């Protein structure tokens, strides 16, 4: 019996040893597969595409939420008045960046129609492609400023009024368009300013011309109309307060009705510095007809920010050597 047991044990052990050895090798191979990158790249790619799908789904969700939330908020049952934003723009290094961040603000505003007018004899591909991808409702126009009115390299920015022809082109388009949006509002938004979302809701109810403070303009922290008894009595500004309307382009909005009723009202490109706004508003409205917004003109909801011109010394040096950065890459 002892020998049998012995034999049994021995064979059992040998058998077991072989089986466990094979098992361990198999297990090691399984664990070792982590180093096998080809098999793991696929799940990673799958994860990436799954994440992309998720992002896309969320973005669609956000867009839907943007579109449906406004009817819920409006106490009035009528559809919201459209805000037509006229933005003159011109080609320079920071143009795409400015338009990008401006569009990111506009994307939050419901019922906004962007009229982008290029200072150019023809539509540039940069702006065309940009607008197509922006996801906004837009109209793309262009008109070149005549040479004598155009700022030259090295001119200070205040030397000649800028954007007059482009804004007039925008107004003309609105007049020609003949759409029946009588309750709409027209706002002139430059591409380098900063706008809070609250501003657009303030201007939506404009009946004739509404006004509000503008930050960081006129050499002051802000400029604003002074309101007494719900009416604008004068303007608080540090520079030439005797102008008919001493305010910045970003400080007022006009109802479309008024624009259509006064077919000749436009910006005078030959107006002296600082009188561009007045040249337009003079024919449209008087001071006591102005509608003060932004809590009786005590809150700053728009800032006249200006973007620095990027220093391109090295780029220019490289270009002189013929080694400039790839122009095929759009900046």
């Amino acid at each position: 019996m002892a020998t049998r047991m012995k034999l049994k044990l021995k064979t059992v052990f040998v058998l077991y040893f072989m089986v466990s050895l094979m098992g361990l090798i198999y297990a090691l191979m399984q664990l070792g597969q982590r180093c096998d990158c080809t098999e793991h790249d696929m799940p990673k790619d799958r994860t990436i595409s799954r994440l992309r799908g998720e992002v896309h789904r969320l973005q669609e969700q956000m867009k839907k939420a943007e579109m449906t939330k406004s009817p819920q908020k409006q106490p009035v049952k009528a559809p919201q008045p459209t805000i037509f934003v006229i933005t003159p723009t011109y080609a320079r290094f920071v143009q795409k960046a400015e338009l990008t961040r401006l569009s990111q603000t506009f994307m939050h505003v419901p019922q906004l129609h962007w009229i982008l007018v290029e200072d150019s004899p023809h539509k540039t591909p940069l702006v065309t492609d940009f607008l197509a991808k922006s996801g906004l409702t837009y109209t793309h126009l262009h008109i070149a400023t005549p040479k004598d009115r155009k700022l030259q390299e090295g001119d200070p920015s205040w030397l000649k009024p800028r954007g007059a022809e482009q804004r007039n082109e925008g107004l003309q388009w609105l007049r020609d368009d003949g759409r029946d949006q009588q309750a709409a509002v027209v706002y002139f938004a430059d591409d380098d300013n900063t706008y809070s979302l609250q501003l657009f809701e303030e201007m939506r109810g404009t009946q004739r011309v509404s006004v509000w403070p503008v930050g960081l303009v006129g050499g002051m922290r802000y400029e604003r109309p002074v309101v007494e008894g719900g009416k604008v009595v004068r303007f608080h500004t540090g520079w030439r307060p005797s102008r008919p309307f001493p305010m910045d382009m970003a400080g007022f909005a006009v109802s479309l009705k008024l624009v259509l009723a006064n077919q000749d009202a436009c910006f005078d490109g030959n107006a002296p510095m600082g009188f561009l706004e007045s040249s337009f508003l003079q024919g449209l409205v008087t001071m006591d007809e102005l509608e003060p917004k932004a809590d009786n003109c005590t809150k700053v909801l728009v800032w006249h920010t200006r973007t620095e011109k990027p220093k391109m010394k090295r780029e220019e040096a490289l270009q002189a050597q013929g080694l400039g950065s790839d122009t095929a890459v759009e900046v």
Partner: protein
Amino acid sequence: MPKRRDILAIVLIVLPWTLLITVWHQSTITPLLASRKDKDESSDSSSNSRNTFALKESCSLQEPDIVEVVRTEYVYSRPPPWSDVLPTLHIITPTYSRSVQKAELTRLANTLLHVPNLHWILVEDSQRRTSLVSRLLRETTLNYTHLNVETPRNYKVRGDTRDPRIPRGTMQRNLALRWLRETFSGNRSQPGIVYFADDDNTYSLELFEEMRSTRKVSVWPVAFVGGLRYESPKVNTLGKVYGWKTVFDPHRPFAIDMAGFAVNLRLILYKPQAYFKLRGVKGGYQESSLLKELVTLHDLEPKAANCTKVLVWHTRTERPVLVNEGKKGFTDSTVEI
């Protein structure tokens, strides 16, 4: 004796198999555990992020969890959707008080509101958190964390200048990194990406989606830096970064701008000693001071179509010349700009 031998034999047979089976199970179970933990952590962190934090104070201020959008006539933004699947983007923005601060933060917030699963870590360079920034953050309804640390001022120089030896924003970014390490120390597999976004740059929405798939450190071109139209990493045909297409000192370990890279949160937690160097950093070497602790050139992941598209612009805002304010201040100082 036979019985003992039998028992011994049985034990010897069974023991290694049980060991093998336990090892086997552990390797298959841990991924499941990690994902479950992820779900718990992400829901916790999303509710935590809506509260404000101050590391230096003993009792942290916990503002009520603002989930409902305040329905007034003026607020038209709502919190970006929170998904369990997408890695969170932790955007670290240092900021300091100046006249354009509110404008810059407003338009940056307008941009960030479009990005899902974003957590904004705003660090003020100030002694205490200002009401301007606190109010702005509350009104945006973004998921945020509001921190502050003051860069020590150089009292030897007349006036209110900060210590010029410490590059701007360094202490603030380091504080944010420290906050991330303290908040997420428990769970190392929390998916998140860390990006340093200055408050005056311009970001396209595409950029945020490019950085979401960062495994270690991803890089891309940045416009208007180094005196060029754009600076970018050099990428070879195998999709690996081998150099830097810059004019200004291309031999820096990482010749890239702060806005040109993003780091996986896991890597930040894995290397808890990695911070931006405070002093003795040459101009342009700040980014390298952090990145060299985290990653090698070989591990960089090029994004933006192998670094051929520009998705972020290093714009700078002009300092407004407030000449007409005069000595006493022409405008009402109680009106916030």
